[in-house]
């Protein structure tokens, strides 16, 4: 067997969302030969779905903001399991990365002084999110795309990577196939940046598209890299719940930033009932103060709807489980109520939240300027991912880098809204920079034909098993397993069951058969994606089993409280010598003296 195409690059970037594009641009600027591989067409990656904004302490709306406050907010939101150096770099560099987007053509909404406007978001002390209505992700990816296409980057669209290759300890390239023709490609590269995003497709209810099958985490793991914090999956509190076919589609936190409130079926704003102690000092205790905050009153504290996502999601679950939910199993999110209190009324809502207005109008036949939305938690993001060095983003495999959602460290146990888009550009840039440096400083790589052939064999095997297991059925069962057993509320028994079920599903996946030919065959693509979905699902379940406490995105009904001991450790994962998955504890990195002082000062 032989691949149809071979390619040779200094730096190969896998994934073309915000992080991948930013990495490719940076690597190209360093003067090396750059390839960019993406599963979809260019500009379609999940970054387009990001709505609310990009967090950066520009201090345009509130001059009390600074990198220190942003850093402290990020650490508090992550329950101090974050890598403090990453949180520091992120807070310090985000403003420059946002300004750079403007220099590349992005048009953020403006303040009266003509500067970039910033909005409130959950867990951020001051208005911090630069935004474009509620389509900030689209603006960001289009800006990077339109800038990137003029930088001499070779782009491979609709190409899926199936295995990383090694030359000794070092990464040396990858094997991939193109969706259009089903031909095999061999990519040789001195360094590789993984920017493949998340794992949302392992769950039934998710805001993620089909692409989010954990490729980066899984491929890195199978190539010997360590993963970190895989138990921390973010369930966004507000996804659509009706109609059933759109269940899980995201409803931006920006709705709450603009004054939207959560109510149960009795009309009660239940978020006031449960404000965590460490947020009491900065959270409004009455409706009037919360609304003043949303209107920009600097002396007001933020409404409890803008508490961190993990907490809001659990409060919604509590209402639903307690029989106080909305008719379709969610709660009500009401932004229509602000109409009499803002100039322009309904038009103001449409201007601030155009995509949300459009989305509900088109998909649910609901006018959000008139009636409340129904919302409930949806699998949105994974805080965990490839374990990387804070400064360089290199994984534990030399030459293999990771950035964005597929890397771990910045967000700890829970990510703040808006910190993802900033993560992409801050660490995408760093990954590109250091991957180029690595390629320049280290010589060429050798391709091991045996590895290539093994990968090609694995990819084509399903065609020989025509009457076997159905790939869609296995994927469906896996999504139900993860949703039901390793979801928003977890316990020992269910997760142990999930580990067994994932093993059983892996046995079924091994005998999946595919019909048709290799040209744009979704059945085949689904079959190949299963390996990655199963790997990351096992990683999530095994890490979660070992964390016998509740913290951030990880909530256990059998251990509902935080445990101090677990507050000092991250869970790392590697492939053992016997091929089995090993989970082990590593100490959370200690913040520098300066950072400790910042944390202490900010509370």
């Amino acid at each position, binding site marked *: 067997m032989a691949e149809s195409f071979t390619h040779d690059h200094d730096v190969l970037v896998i994934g073309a969302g915000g992080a991948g594009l930013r990495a490719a641009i940076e690597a190209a600027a360093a003067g090396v030969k750059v390839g960019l591989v993406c599963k*979809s*067409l260019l*500009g*379609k*990656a*999940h970054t*387009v*779905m990001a709505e609310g904004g990009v967090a950066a302490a520009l201090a345009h709306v509130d001059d009390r903001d600074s990198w220190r406050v942003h850093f402290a907010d990020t650490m508090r939101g992550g329950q101090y399991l974050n890598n403090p150096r990453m949180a520091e770099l992120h807070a310090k560099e985000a403003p420059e990365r946002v*300004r750079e987007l*403007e*220099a*590349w*053509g992005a*048009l953020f909404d*403006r303040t009266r*002084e*003509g*500067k970039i406007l910033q909005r409130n978001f959950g867990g951020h002390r001051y208005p911090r999110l630069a935004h*474009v209505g509620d*389509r900030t992700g*689209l603006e960001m990816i*289009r800006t990077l795309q*339109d*800038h990137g*296409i003029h930088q001499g980057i070779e782009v491979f*669209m609709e190409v899926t990577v199936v295995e990383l290759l090694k030359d000794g300890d070092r990464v040396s390239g990858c094997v991939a196939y193109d969706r*259009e023709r089903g031909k095999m490609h061999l990519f040789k590269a001195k360094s590789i940046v993984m920017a493949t995003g998340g794992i949302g497709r392992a769950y039934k209810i998710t805001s993620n*598209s*089909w*692409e989010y099958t954990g490729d980066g985490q899984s491929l890195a793991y199978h190539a010997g890299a360590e993963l970190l914090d895989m138990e921390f999956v973010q369930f966004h509190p507000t996804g659509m719940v*009706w*109609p*059933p*076919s*759109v269940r899980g*589609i*995201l409803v931006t936190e920006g709705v709450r930033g603009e004054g939207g409130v959560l109510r149960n079926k009795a009309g009660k704003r239940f978020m006031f009932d449960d404000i965590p102690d460490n947020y009491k000092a900065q959270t409004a205790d009455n409706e009037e103060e919360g609304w003043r905050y949303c209107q920009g009153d600097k002396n007001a504290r933020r409404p409890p709807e803008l508490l961190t996502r993990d907490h809001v999601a659990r409060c919604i679950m509590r209402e639903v489980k307690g029989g106080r939910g909305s008719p379709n199993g969610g709660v009500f999110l009401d932004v229509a109520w602000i109409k009499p209190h803002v100039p322009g009324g309904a038009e103001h809502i449409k201007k601030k939240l*155009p*995509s949300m207005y459009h*989305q509900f109008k*088109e*998909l*649910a*036949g609901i006018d959000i300027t008139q009636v409340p939305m129904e919302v409930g938690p949806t699998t949105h993001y994974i805080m965990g991912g490839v374990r990387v060095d804070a400064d360089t983003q290199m994984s534990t495999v030399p030459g293999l880098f990771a950035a964005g959602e597929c890397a771990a460290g910045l967000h700890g146990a829970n990510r703040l809204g808006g910190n993802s888009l900033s993560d992409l550009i801050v660490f995408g840039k760093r990954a590109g920079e250091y991957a180029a440096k690595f390629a320049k400083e280290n010589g060429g790589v050798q391709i091991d034909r045996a590895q290539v052939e093994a990968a090609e064999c694995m990819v084509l095997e399903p065609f020989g098993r025509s009457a076997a297991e*159905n*790939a*869609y*059925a296995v994927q*469906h069962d896996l999504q139900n397993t993860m949703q039901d057993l390793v979801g928003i509320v977890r316990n020992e028994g269910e997760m142990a069951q999930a580990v067994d079920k994932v093993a059983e599903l892996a046995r079924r996946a091994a005998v999946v058969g*595919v*019909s*048709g*030919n290799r*040209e*744009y*065959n*979704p*059945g*085949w693509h*689904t079959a190949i994606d299963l390996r990655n979905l199963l790997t990351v699902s096992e990683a999530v379940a095994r890490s979660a089993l070992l964390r016998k406490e509740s913290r951030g995105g990880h909530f256990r009904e059998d251990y509902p409280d935080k445990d101090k001991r677990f507050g000092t450790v991250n869970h790392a994962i590697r492939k053992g010598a016997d091929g089995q998955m090993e989970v082990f504890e590593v100490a959370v990195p200690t913040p520098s003296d300066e950072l400790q002082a910042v944390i202490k000062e900010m509370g």
Partner: protein
Amino acid sequence: MAKTTFSIYRGDSEGGQFADYQTEVGEGMVVLDCVHQIQAESAPDLAVRWNCKAGKCGSCSAEVNGKPRLMCMTRMSDLPEGETVTLEPLKAFPRLRDLVTDVSWNYGVKQGIAKFAPRAPDAEDGTWRMQQEDIDRVQEFRKCIECFLCQDVCHVLRDHRKHGEFAGPRHFVYAAALEMHPLDTADRVEALKEQEGLGYCNITKCCTTVCPEGITITDNAIIPLKERVVDRHYDPMRSLVRGLIGR
């Protein structure tokens, strides 16, 4: 629940034919849901391009009952009840397989348009000042999700196949966004006339009609660009002045 029949184009670049599939349509389902259900039930190799399923990425463009639509934003309840739903690929681009077409031509056209070139920063810290009212128009253009439905419906591409001489509505919106960007300094007027074939557009506004983002492509992007071309080339006063000073 009653089953609905879908007549779906199956084939590749060589040719193909319509095949019928039946599937149950549940509450609130969109056309793309039905296609996925058919894949899972009876046609695992039915090719369809999709991504966000929320009208934000512009991947799942196809022709639903002959009209260019995003399949993820077309609700079954908005189609005639009890009638067969016809699905076929976009017609302005080469067919690859089933509902998937080769849209790579669009990426090449975009690359040929002069990139954003900002003026020197307004402030010492390297930043600019812009008023919201000055960017409202450009923000409308930047809502484009590159679904290429406007390209598909445009008769210059769809019927007259002027792909070599005409950039299409999408790229006029792109060029307009750059031309009207308050910071931009590049000049695309000559290229719009000579290379991108702006003159072929005869303002039938089909593109505006199909745009899922509601961008007023013809009135807000194309006509102002045409005016710029006219001002430059056909302004009688300017011609007179040019004649008098001998340039």
